[in-house]
């Protein structure tokens, strides 16, 4: 299983190098004032501090949508099923790799947020970043069994359908639901800032932050068990 995990890192090395390069660039800009004693343009510093976590999370999301593609071959699925780790090990390595990547991104965002708060006095956004992490984990938990069963093309289509369905629900709510809390004099940016700082909806957000980790972890484990059952069926549709 360890070897399969190394294989995942090897297969995605180009993406991971880009990820590392961007993370180091972001930290270099943020730390230049302290360690290298030169002052980068303040707006660039603030933009980097904000953009670094966002881009890293986007990149992780993109990488995790491609981790099944390169192993969708009958020869590979036959070989891995014959090894001691069997199909379960193959599926486990994918899930572990995706989880490790999310954890690495989360850690990088934690560092970026701590630096941003310390160096620029910005409000901490790490709770929001952590929430995005759990939501990404839930999305992966929902997506992976479909990808394993039907292949990455169909699986990605199903993910697109889920996202469109969610957007549809949001639009329907926006058109017909109670949106009085969103209609304020202050404007969306100020509203979002106060939401992030916990000045509004703090009680509801506390419940969300409290419950979502358990939901995400449970769904991820159940998703893994389901994917183990689906792997052989899915492998039958692979090309040679």
């Amino acid at each position, binding site marked *: 299983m*360890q070897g399969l995990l190394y294989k995942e890192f090897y297969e995605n090395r180009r993406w991971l190098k880009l990820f590392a390069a961007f993370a180091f660039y972001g930290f270099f800009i943020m730390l230049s004032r302290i360690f290298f004693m030169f002052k980068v343009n303040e707006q660039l510093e603030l933009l980097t501090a904000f953009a670094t976590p966002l881009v890293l999370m986007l990149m992780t999301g993109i990488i995790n949508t491609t981790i099944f593609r390169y192993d969708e071959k009958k020869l590979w699925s036959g070989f891995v099923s014959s090894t001691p780790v069997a199909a379960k090990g193959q599926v486990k390595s994918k899930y572990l790799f995706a989880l490790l990547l999310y*954890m690495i991104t989360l850690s990088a965002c*934690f*560092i970026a947020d701590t630096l941003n708060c310390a160096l620029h006095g910005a409000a901490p956004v*790490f709770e929001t970043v*952590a929430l995005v*992490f759990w939501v990404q984990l839930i999305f992966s938990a929902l997506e992976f069994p479909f990808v394993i069963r039907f292949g990455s093309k169909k699986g990605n289509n199903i993910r697109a359908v889920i996202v469109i369905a969610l957007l549809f629900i949001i639009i329907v709510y926006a058109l017909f639901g109670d949106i009085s809390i969103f209609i304020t004099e202050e404007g969306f940016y100020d509203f979002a800032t106060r939401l992030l700082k916990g000045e509004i909806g703090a*009680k509801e957000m506390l419940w969300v932050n409290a419950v979502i980790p358990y939901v995400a972890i449970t769904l991820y484990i159940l998703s893994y068990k389901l994917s183990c059952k689906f792997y052989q069926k899915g492998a039958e549709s692979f090309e040679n």
Partner: protein
Amino acid sequence: MKTDKMITVVRLVIFLIIACVPGIFIVTWINSYLGAPMYSNPAISSSPVVGLANFCMMLPAFGVLVTRVFTKQGFKDALLEFNARGNLKYYAMAVLIPLAYGTIGNLLSNLASGADLGKMLTGEAFWDLFPIALYLPTSIIPCIIMFFGEEFGWRGYLIPQLEKLMPTPAAVIVGGVIWGLWHAPITISGHNFGVDYPGFPYVGILLMILDCICMGAFLTLLTRRTKSVWPAVIAHGINNTATTALLIPFISPTYIPTGSTTPDVIATFLIYGIPVAVTGIVSFVLLCLDWKKERKAA
């Protein structure tokens, strides 16, 4: 044999220099930036700059990386596998035991502050506080790199290397002393005890050493039994962030009667430390028994 021991000593020296020395400079820089010890009062400790001290927790892991790479030690014995199969009870212990000793310790120190136990456990604000209790144990996950940073260094490297030089029980005590002294810069900055107690900072450093020996024994037990640092990472995380989790939903806001005397911070720490000490002693005894068994088998 002698050469092996000398190599181990050199590796330990390199590791300890990297794990300990930069932290002194980081903490000193933060204190000079703030103009006062960073934990000396709530107004100063709430500054976001204090968050930079958290990066010192990653220094032990950095020390391990540098030592293993430059002394060509490799990473085969790095204890990075999860080894969850057959060891789930240790992973459960990693979560439950810190929650248990934290709950008991907080109860005892609240009682020592004159709290009315009946009033304290009425749970007047149960549903308001319950989400905090749920949230606390999982809050370690987003910042797990910090706890991994420490445990990969202390339990993942320091203790195994010390075990090559001395018996396991001695290694646990020496490791605890080193870990406690590693905390000295932040203890001097007011962490845990403030700056106003009698005997500052020596009493604080001594108590920290005792605490680290006790906790170190428990974390070493988890690491040795599972041959993995991950249970220790989880236990350390729960210890630092979530020890009040079980108690929080039940605490009535009015539990401390007016006019009661709060014991000083040292006394409170000692009272809180009773269940920690019990955990440490039991773990230490179990480690001694394991070590004796291994010696007999060898």
